[in-house]
């Protein structure tokens, strides 16, 4: 193992929220209902392969990507396809699968990894449904199997509020993770970079065949975009792939057994659950039983977020786990009025990065934060505040403005290829004018995909 380079940043913010998950696994009866949501994948148009009422095996393809029919999405469990939930214009919102006890699986015959060619590995990953675990930069979409990436990045550091500890999640999956890294090495010609925390905690100190680097600093230091910018900056036309840590182990587990692995370890965390902790479950599982076990506070309206409080997707307590997230954040809704709450140094319990609040002095046990917007959207006036929380070598406000006016050339030159919406999560939070930065970037990237590809 060699340490490629350490990444240290000072720009950003560490926001300490109340309700960090305790490092214990709670064992409960596995959920019975599951859902695959095409919206978990950026700009994906799904094409169904299974009808309502049909039985599906674990690992059986349920739908594929219209843009590339080799990319298949498989059922995480054995059961029956119960319902296809559609929205406006018959858009597929979710494919609900009811699990049964038959435990039927699709098993693939694989060439041993050390003898397999790159093409064989790619074909196996595509056929098994493992491919969607691999995302590409630019744009943060599912990787194109025909591309040769410059490198593959895995960040095992989560710096977002209530972030999970991947060394704890992967504690007893060392072999799977190692195998996964070996598979990725096949895909990227030994250019696999893994970001670890500065202490090399957990299993990551013992993994071989990867270029590891340490990451140290406040959020968004753990974001993989930042690591790519430091270690393999993207140039026009280049591709870098990214895989999330638990999916590396899932890919490894598939290569060890021939069976698609849909393991998803989640933390239910946040101030609106009484006993925040970790659970082992499966991709797409319904969240309700886990929320109940973590003792969701039902005395007040709450928001269940698939993911972290900056980048997650709002859901409700009857929702289903997102495809990728290891974290379900639960915080109180904030639909209340605050008399003269706009005065400086008033309501200091609301976390603020601005010195117009004394909130820093009130952060003993972590903030109890709500979803209130704390103001209204306004024109962009204040300058310099975005740069403070944005460690990239990019001018964030200028890039946002280029996206707003849809100036593609400007967007390219200002670095749209180097970021994804999640990197602007903290800017969403911090900016005075309450501008929806992630949404602006998302629309900008959609435009780039449409116009440039």
């Amino acid at each position, binding site marked *: 193992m060699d340490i490629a380079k350490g990444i240290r940043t000072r720009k950003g913010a560490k926001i300490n929220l109340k309700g960090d998950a305790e490092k214990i696994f709670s064992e409960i009866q596995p959920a019975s209902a599951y859902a695959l949501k095409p919206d978990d994948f950026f700009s994906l148009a799904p094409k169904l392969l299974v009808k309502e009422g049909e039985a599906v095996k674990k690992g059986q393809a349920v739908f594929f990507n219209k843009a590339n029919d080799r990319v298949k999405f498989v059922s995480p469990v054995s059961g029956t396809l119960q319902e296809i939930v559609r929205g406006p214009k018959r858009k597929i919102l979710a494919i609900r699968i009811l699990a049964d006890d038959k435990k039927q699986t699709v098993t693939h015959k694989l060439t041993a990894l050390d003898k397999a060619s790159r093409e064989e590995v790619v074909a196996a990953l595509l056929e098994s449904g493992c491919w969607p675990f691999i995302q590409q930069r630019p744009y943060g979409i599912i990787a194109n199997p025909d591309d040769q990436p410059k490198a593959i990045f895995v960040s095992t550091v989560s710096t977002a*509020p209530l972030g999970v500890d991947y060394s704890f999640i992967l504690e007893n999956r060392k072999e799977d993770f190692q195998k996964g890294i070996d598979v990725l090495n096949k895909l990227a010609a030994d250019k696999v970079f893994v970001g670890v925390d500065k202490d090399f905690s957990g299993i990551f100190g013992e993994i071989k065949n990867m270029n590891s680097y340490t990451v140290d600093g406040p959020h968004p230091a753990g974001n993989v975009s930042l690591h790519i910018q430091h270690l393999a*900056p993207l*140039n*026009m036309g*280049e591709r870098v792939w990214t895989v999330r840590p638990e999916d590396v182990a899932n890919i490894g587990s598939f290569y060890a057994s021939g069976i698609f692995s849909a393991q998803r370890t989640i933390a239910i965390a946040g101030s609106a659950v009484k006993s925040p902790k970790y659970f082992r479950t499966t991709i797409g599982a319904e969240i309700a039983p886990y929320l109940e076990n973590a003792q969701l506070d039902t005395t007040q309206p709450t*928001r269940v*977020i698939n993911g972290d409080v*900056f*980048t997650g997707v*709002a859901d409700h307590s009857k929702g289903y786990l997102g495809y990728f997230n290891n974290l379900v954040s639960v*915080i109180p*809704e*904030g*639909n209340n*009025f605050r*008399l*003269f*709450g*706009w*005065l*400086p140094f008033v309501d200091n319990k609301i*976390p*603020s*990065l*601005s*010195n*117009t*609040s004394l*909130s820093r002095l009130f952060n003993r046990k972590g903030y109890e*934060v*709500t*979803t*209130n*917007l*704390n*103001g*209204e*959207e*306004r*024109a962009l*006036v*204040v*300058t*310099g*505040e975005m*740069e403070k929380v944005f460690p990239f070598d*990019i001018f964030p406000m*200028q890039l946002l403005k280029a996206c707003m006016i849809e100036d593609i050339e400007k967007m390219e030159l*200002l670095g749209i290829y180097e970021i994804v919406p999640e990197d602007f*999560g903290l800017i*969403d*939070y*911090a*900016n*005075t*004018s*309450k501008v929806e*930065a*992630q*949404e602006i970037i998302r629309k900008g990237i959609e435009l780039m995909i449409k116009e440039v590809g």
Partner: protein
Amino acid sequence: MSTLRKQFDKLRAPFNKGQKLEKFAPAINAFDTFLFVPNHTTKEGAHIRDAVDLKRVMVTVIIALMPALFYGIYNTGYQHFSQLGAAFTFWDAFIHGAWKIVPMIIVSYVVGLSIEFGFAIYRGHEINEGYLVTGMLIPMIMPVDIPLWMVALSVAFSVLIAKEAFGGTGMNILNPALTARAFAFFAYPTYMSGNKVWVSEASNIDGISGETILGKLAAGMDVNYSFFEMFQGSIPGSIAETSTLWVAVGALILIFTGVGSWRIITGGILGGALMGFLFNLWSANELMSFSWINHLVVGGFAFGIVFMATDPVSAAQTNKGKWVYGILVGIFCIMIRVFNPAYPEGVMLAILLMNVFAPTIDHYVVNANINKRKKRWASQQLIKTA
């Protein structure tokens, strides 16, 4: 609180969506959000938001203006009574000043906010809080005896031409408050310069010596104020700019809260000091030999650098750009003072000039980043073709 809320909900019912007065919703919203931070929750993007909003930022600027405003009110009375030679108390002076200045503030707010409300209703957007600061600044930088209708006209000009014509808050090129002053200065020069306008009711008094220090210097006269008097501000001048001491208190508030850019303020002081020092070496006339440190405390220099140059919309927006912008404002301010005897105070024109050039400064700063990226792309292509 909940009873107050209920009362207000009743009051605003006709303005809600689908109701009779829906079109005027921005007006009632402005009052509503003045009382309460609304109950809006996040709909997209990050689920949690910082406590800071534009209202809080603007109110912080107003708080920072207060020390200078109160001193300005007192100084107005002080100049009036001391020139009369009459005995007076602190309260006499303060009441005289308030009697002159409070109507100007009211006129500024009424005229400016009416236009803002009108545009918000016409364009169907919420009312931006920016005018709260502009409306306070405009009277603070006028000579005390300017007629109220001129204040009203200047306000209308600046809000319409400098701000709304460009698309409203956040879009303007020039600082609106300075545009108002520049309008008054060029449209009614007799009310804005000379030796009779800086002291309250000076035109009714014979034998007054109401010149500003810079006016005297430009005329080649000596100044008989000490550094401390100039710093503390008991000198004639526009209403709230005379006291560098209380402006500095405001500057500390702006810098501590992060609302005003310390880069621009520091850059401005450095630029002004440097230019003043260079002129000191040259020393061809009274203004040139006027010590560089005195240059920093007389006239509107301090007020302009702290409260006008730091306007984030019209200033440079990149951190490096802010340094360049600040330093150039300082340099041009002293240069205009020294080289333009017809108009001894240069800070207004220096800031307006740099407002125009701020986008150019930013362009070069951003271009450095773009060029770095282009270079990286080019080197990559070289490797590929090689």
